[in-house]
């Protein structure tokens, strides 16, 4: 039977490690029972609704090593528990990787950005309302998708990559980091993995339960952004029903290098059209070496949505995605 409103936090063990070693040890020991807690904006709804019932939480926000933004030899490194507000307002991010600053500044609302972390925004779970409601869908371990059905309420769902589940990536910063060719720093008691942003997110065909490649015991500790795309021409736009406190209907993040009106290189990614940030490699290929123009924008926009499979209520995402690609290319 589907749960009705609880709205009360259950009893739960809370661990508050203050150093990396302790956090990693706790994550290793607790495994799937250890819920990683950042700003709590993805967590508390799950727990108060009692649709997720972990035994313990490991709060990560007291580990100073995982906070802040620093310059590295090849770019910048952002600690995973750095707040979205800090990222949006950071001069280094703004001056060199304005794409991320803009994206971080468009997450949810000021209140949520003040406590929400970069790691939490990237690793947050699907926002499909059926799944969040606690229904026994594929993503929740069941054998049905309520959204991908003739009557399903699927206006906000995927155009691409459906594989039993049609939930989309809800993150605003994820497409920006894919466009910036960022690297995720993932640590565990067993060591460290460096994962390209594009490969950090997984779709349902590969893993229908998880949105990222993080294994039990692993923690996203930092994001590294190389200087490769520093000071490129950036374009970020998020179209949502509401201009604050909402998830994207479609978002786009683009980094484009232009010289003499000719596009030298480009990386584009869309949010909220697939379970992962959708890298638009065909568009990038079509842009490279071309004179930037409205005509070019129109041409590549069509390429962007090739293969889209609209559901009953999300046809509008096709023209919206095309239009955002046009705007990104036009600059």
């Amino acid at each position, binding site marked *: *039977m*589907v*749960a*009705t*409103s*609880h*709205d*009360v*936090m*259950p*009893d739960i063990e809370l661990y508050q490690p203050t150093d990396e070693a302790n956090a990693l040890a706790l994550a290793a020991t607790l495994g799937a029972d250890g819920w990683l807690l950042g700003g709590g904006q993805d967590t508390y709804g799950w727990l108060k609704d*009692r649709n997720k019932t972990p035994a313990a939480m490991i709060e990560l926000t007291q580990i100073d090593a995982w906070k802040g933004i620093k310059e590295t030899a090849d770019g910048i490194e952002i600690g995973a528990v750095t707040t979205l507000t800090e990222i949006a307002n950071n001069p280094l991010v703004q001056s060199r990787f304005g794409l991320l600053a803009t994206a971080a500044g468009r997450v949810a*609302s000021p209140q949520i950005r003040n406590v929400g972390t970069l790691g939490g925004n990237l690793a947050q779970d699907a926002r499909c*309302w*059926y799944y969040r*409601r606690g*229904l026994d869908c594929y993503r929740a371990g069941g054998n049905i998708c*309520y959204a991908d*059905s003739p*009557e*399903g*309420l699927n*206006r906000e769902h995927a155009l691409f990559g459906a594989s039993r589940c049609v939930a989309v990536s809800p993150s605003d910063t994820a497409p920006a980091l894919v466009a910036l060719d960022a690297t995720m720093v993932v640590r565990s008691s067993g060591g460290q993995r460096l994962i390209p942003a594009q490969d950090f997110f997984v779709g349902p065909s590969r893993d229908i339960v998880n949105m990222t490649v993080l294994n039990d015991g692993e923690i996203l500790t930092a994001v590294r952004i190389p200087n490769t795309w520093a000071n490129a021409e950036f374009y970020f*736009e998020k*179209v949502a*029903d*509401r*201009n*604050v*406190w*909402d998830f994207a*209907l479609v978002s786009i993040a683009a980094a484009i290098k232009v010289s003499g009106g000719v596009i030298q290189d480009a990386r584009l990614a869309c949010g909220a059209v697939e379970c992962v940030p959708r890298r638009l490699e065909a568009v990038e290929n079509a842009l490279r070496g071309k004179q930037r123009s409205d005509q070019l924008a129109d041409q590549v926009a069509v390429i962007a949505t090739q293969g889209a499979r609209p559901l*009953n*209520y*999300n*046809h*509008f995402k*096709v*023209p*919206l995605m095309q*239009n*955002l690609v*046009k*705007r990104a290319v036009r600059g």
Partner: protein
Amino acid sequence: MAYMHIGKDFVPPDVAGKVTGRIKYAEDYSREGMVYARLLTSPIPHARVVSIDASAALAMDGVFGILTADDVYPDGEPGGTGLKILTNEPTLVGEPILALAAVDEKTAESAIAAISVTFERLPFVLDPLDSLAEGGPDAYTGGNTFVFREGFASEKWSRDQVASFRAGAEPTAEPQQQFAYGDLEAAFAQSAFVYEGSFTTAGYPHMSMEPRSAMAYWENGKLYLHGTSQSLTGLAVDMAGIVGVPQEDFVFINEATGGGFGQRARAGSIPSMAIPAKLSQKINRPVMMRISREEEFTIGGARQGFQGWLKCGFKADGTMAALDIYIISDNGGKGGGGDAFAAADCISILYQTEAMRFRGTAIGSNTGHRGAQRGPGQNQIAPIIAPILDKAAAELGIDRLAIRLLNTPQNGDVGGPQRQPLTSAYMPEALQQGAALFNYQERITRSRQRNGSKVTGIGVGQGYHNAGRSGMDGIVRLMPDGRLAVHNGVGNLGTYSYASTSRAAAEVLQMPWERVDVITGRTDRNLPVTSPQDGSNSIFTNTRTNWGAAQDLLAKMKEIAAMDLGGAPADYTVGGERIYKISDSSTGMTFAQIAQRGLQLGGKFTGEAEVPEDLNDFTKLSVSRLAGSALMGIFHDSRHNNNPPGFTVTFTEIELDTETGKYDIVDMVTIGECGTVMHPQGLKNQLVGGAVWGIGLSGYERHLYDPQNGLPASTGYWQSKVPTILDTPAKIRTGWVDLPDPENPVGARGIGEPAMGAVSAALTAAISDALDGHLFNASPITADMILNHLAGVTSEAVPLAQNNFRG
């Protein structure tokens, strides 16, 4: 007329408490020994409770007891539709089945999880048209509609009739309700332009900031209930009946309310407050029941959604000659309201339609319960009609403002099925004032101008709601220290009308505001019966009662003065907190002196004799408790004539981005036409607040239920898409006509509901304008609809629907 208080800004007494957070809402109270209740609500849209096994829960430490429908209705649940306190036959997901009290909420939740309820699933339906179709499920046991004094009935159309209506054709089935006036056929024959089409409007929840939490305890046989409401006495009288306690033993406490828009005005729309009262009685402890956001969604009420068809004819000069309208309204899971009738009535008044026929049928669905929500009916139809009016104007070559000026009501006009006269109407003045402030003549030239992907849309909207009642009471007292106490039963839901209407009494006595005490907040402060604070009536209704009570007090003061100082009562007047002879101001008494003299005299002067017999019962109780305490003014307001309207006009300019389906509201001007202005700041707040609601209605808010399982999908602020501060204009310019209405002693009428309708109408008109006059015939109009239209995308979604993305 020069007033001392009327039309002047002031600081209502509760403002400091609200700004500092010190004022208490129901959830802020506590009581020694208080325990906490949580609800077990139905997870199924339509079911029957077969059995409840709470033995494991009741055996848990910290659990004090449960309350079920069998406890509150030992003789069986009330028949008919309507919210119940608890039920064994839920007709919507989230309807309360039982409550459990425990030492804290966490324990209560854990205990509720240990309760086993066996449900028998019953057929459910989410779209009234699915229920209307032959063989379709009914929302209630016994039918899909409830006929007053007749009981449940099952209303069915043939499947072809439903399919034809869904496809946009005129419904052919007999309606439940209808009215008509004028020669419709002849009026259409005279029409130079006729528009015909179907439309949908979404029902959506109230989403008041404060959920309907309540705390109750019993002491010396009296029930003390801390709750939330739009009305004090207007709600408390019936609430006593719901709980089953005599009025004299019931104390309702409600100092402040965090928003009320129709579903907190009357006890019948908020019977859940009886749960802690009944549970407290059962377990003999104070009980706090906090209501969650989702619970507020499910039992907090929703607007009725419409699926309709209309045919509208205009003469060559632009006169709206004929309207034929048929509305299927969604009655939800617990019965609904009269929105469809009100919508048709609104068109008749607002556009002075020469001939008209309304047909309406209300059908249940297993979704949130329906009832009055800010402009119920009037505000759903306003955004549908406005773009059609613009289409007619375009077809007939008439300016959009001109066609409104031609059809708008003015003094001497009548409206509605009874052709009832309006008490006054200054809509031409409102339209002209708004046009001047908006600079309409220049602005209209920007209509449909393109700037890259953006295109400008101009919209004009009008709103209406009846705005005044009578039959209520007033009590004022002149205290021995010379202060004036105004007993006011109006609720404090944020409009401050409890205070602004009290100023009518201060005006009569020319009393400085700082010498006035507004007595309110709890019913044991001996309040008069006032109208439930709904229907935009408070200003009109309660200025009449407070003015009348103060006039009674003044008459008594003059009688005493004449008695003691000589001359006739008519020889005296008041000013400077004195009553004195008009011909010799040195002959007089201070207010304190005359109050003390009144106390000496007693009898009719102090409410101990000659109390008006026609007072409402609760007022009589209050007067009897106050008798002998001060010099009193007591008044029963018997009746008023005709229909006092509240009107609004809105002009807006939007910039619609054809690539995103989004738009910015570049400018908005909204004008109130509500008689004499009582409280400019309060009026401005109403106009701006109503504008935000109108923006939500026309652009954002939705009411989603999953057709597969009947679960609500828009229970919170995010999913229901209540507009945010960044979706509304940075500045909404306001104004008002400020001409007096003859049926109110200070000339005032209400404004709360129309403040929303005009904005919702202006917005859909502007969207339509930006899209070359395309008619969506829907509210809300969301970005996906605009994008689909522009891209020529034909969605597979059904054209008419309810509790879904379209409608």
